[in-house]
């Protein structure tokens, strides 16, 4: 306690630095919430449809599919695994198999098999990155290409359509007034948050990402933890893909294209560092909410798609720039 007090004393001794760092500290903690509030305020004033339950439900539903991936991707970034670029393949695996296997083994087993196989892809990624030390970008890019090819070969390279309307009804339906997809997203996020922030696995993940050698020396099974992050992401992407397939009732091989970048965007905008060792699921989801709200406002305002891409790009650049600036000050 006294140590903390002396720390604060020393900080306030130099007023100029203290003022600067307090402001930055405040910004880093509340910046995102402020941004979200600003977007909501702007949206409500500029468009009559923005602040309605219907619109918010739309945003929630549309962010749920990608949100499940975001939960997994958070682990990859926190553990210092840079990014998982095999997400489009694992999503396609989830979607194509959960629809394609329906006539053979029924909807629920098909979904489970699809997610399990996506997890298998993740474990190959994990083995390459965690145990063989291959660069995550190359490993996930390569395995993603291979996996997507195999899944396509398995169904003959065609678009797969759903054969079980009742499962589609269930996924598109509501439970207690909340869309099922949103519920699944919330459950995934809660589990992800619990694992990352409350469990030993989460502590290991943060330790491995923060300082690999130190974590290894402290008997953290760093290789398994690193591999695990990729398995978690693949499982999440598999679930997300399965839900996407069931919602659309059709799955093409490129169904997951772009999801990897959207997920990375959300996580990075949420303030999770790409260098690893820092971040949480709620932060990543806050990033996702901000990106989704912003996109929604831009769509309602009639902003053209290319401009939206432009804004998103600047957003990511700004977020990483801020991350590195905060890092230099030793706050984030």
């Amino acid at each position: 306690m006294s140590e903390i007090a002396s720390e604060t004393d020393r900080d306030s001794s130099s007023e100029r630095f203290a003022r600067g760092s307090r402001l930055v500290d405040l910004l880093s903690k509340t910046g995102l919430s402020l941004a979200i509030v600003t977007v909501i305020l702007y949206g409500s004033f500029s468009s009559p449809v923005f602040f309605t339950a219907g619109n918010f439900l739309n945003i929630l539903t549309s962010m749920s599919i990608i949100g499940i991936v975001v939960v997994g991707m958070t682990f990859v970034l926190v553990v210092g695994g840079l990014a998982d670029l095999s997400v489009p393949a694992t999503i396609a695996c989830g979607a194509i198999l959960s629809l394609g296997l329906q006539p053979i083994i029924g909807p629920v087993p098909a979904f489970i098999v699809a997610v399990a196989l996506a997890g298998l892809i993740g474990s190959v990624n994990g083995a390459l990155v965690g145990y063989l030390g291959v660069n995550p970008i190359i490993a996930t890019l390569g395995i993603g290409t291979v996996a997507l090819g195999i899944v396509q070969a398995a169904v003959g390279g065609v678009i797969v359509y759903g054969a079980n309307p009742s499962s589609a009804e269930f996924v598109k339906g509501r439970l207690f007034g909340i869309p099922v997809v949103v519920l699944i997203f919330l459950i995934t996020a809660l589990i992800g948050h619990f694992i990352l922030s409350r469990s030993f696995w989460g502590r290991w993940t943060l330790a491995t990402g923060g300082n690999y050698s130190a974590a290894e020396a402290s008997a953290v099974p760093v290789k398994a933890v690193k591999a695990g992050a990729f398995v978690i992401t693949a499982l999440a992407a598999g679930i997300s893909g399965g839900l996407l397939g069931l919602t659309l009732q059709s799955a093409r091989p490129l169904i997951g294209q772009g999801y990897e970048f959207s997920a990375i965007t959300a996580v990075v905008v949420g303030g999770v560092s790409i260098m690893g060792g820092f971040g949480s699921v709620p932060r990543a989801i806050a990033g996702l909410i901000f990106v989704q709200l912003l996109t929604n406002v831009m769509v309602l305002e009639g902003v053209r798609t290319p401009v939206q891409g432009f804004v998103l790009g600047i957003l990511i650049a700004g977020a990483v720039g801020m991350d590195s600036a905060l890092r230099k000050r030793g706050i984030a």
Partner: protein
Amino acid sequence: MPRMIALVLKHRVAIILALTLTISGLIVPGYLSGTTLSLGLDRAAAIGLIATGLTVLLIAGQIDLSGGAIFALAGIVSVILQPSIGILPAAFVGVLVGGLSGAINGLLVVGLKVNSLVLTLATMLIFRAVAHWITNSQPVSGIDIMFSLAMAQIYLDIFSIRSTLFIVLIVLLHVWLTRTIPGRNVFAVGSNPTAAEESGIPAGRIIFFGFVFAGSLAGVAGVLQSLVTNTGSPVFGSELTVAVIAAVVVGGTRLEGGRGSALGTLGGVLIMAALTMAMEFQSVPAYIQQVVSGLILILLVVLDRTVHTRGRTAGAIPLLVTKNPITTGGKT
């Protein structure tokens, strides 16, 4: 025998290329004819030019995901300006736009000290958005189809303008990287930026010019593509990024920086092109082609990884241990 293995591993890129060409030549009728090879080489040139720029960046420890977007943007600019300033000046401006885009990447990466993976992901979105913006998402076409035909002309049965340019550039780059001081400095920056900076090598400047070089070459590739096809399109080059990274990595350049070679990249580009050509001639479905190229990428990276670690543990340290009379119990 170990020396044999080392020799084979050292020249693995050349050996794999020779094997690919031999096997394809035996299986595919007419594969080793001038027409086929020149076509393959011409198509490889677009990937090759971007890969040439990326080689320098990867050696310097950075990555550029925005190459494909710059490719599209530069091509569009060079086509759009044709009516007002003529074909050649427009082409020049297109290349300039590429260099400028690279300079933006470089400035942000060096200035903000951010991870180039995320930053070029952001600028990729931005450049792509600008490309969609100025074309209204429509393809644009040039003014003189005859000029395009002249550009696509094959000389000496095998070389087109862009394949010649690619080969000349990559050989020049090889000489520059291996025989000049700035070239060697790139390796120093890639293997340890702090140490390089301490020894008086301007790491920031080298990285910046690396990005400018990569951007310019992506611009050249895009402009040539647009001149040959007489078209500029905002969706051009979206699938190039993966192919380019794969080609460079297959050529033995490490993503972690500090290791790589221009001739290796030439080999990597040629291997990928030869494989694609052979599989297309045999009407192998696209998804099987993906599996094959993905597997080759993973295989080579894992091979590279195991060779590298074995070289360290089985080469250097045990030599000391076994030759030491104390550790071997005095029985030398």
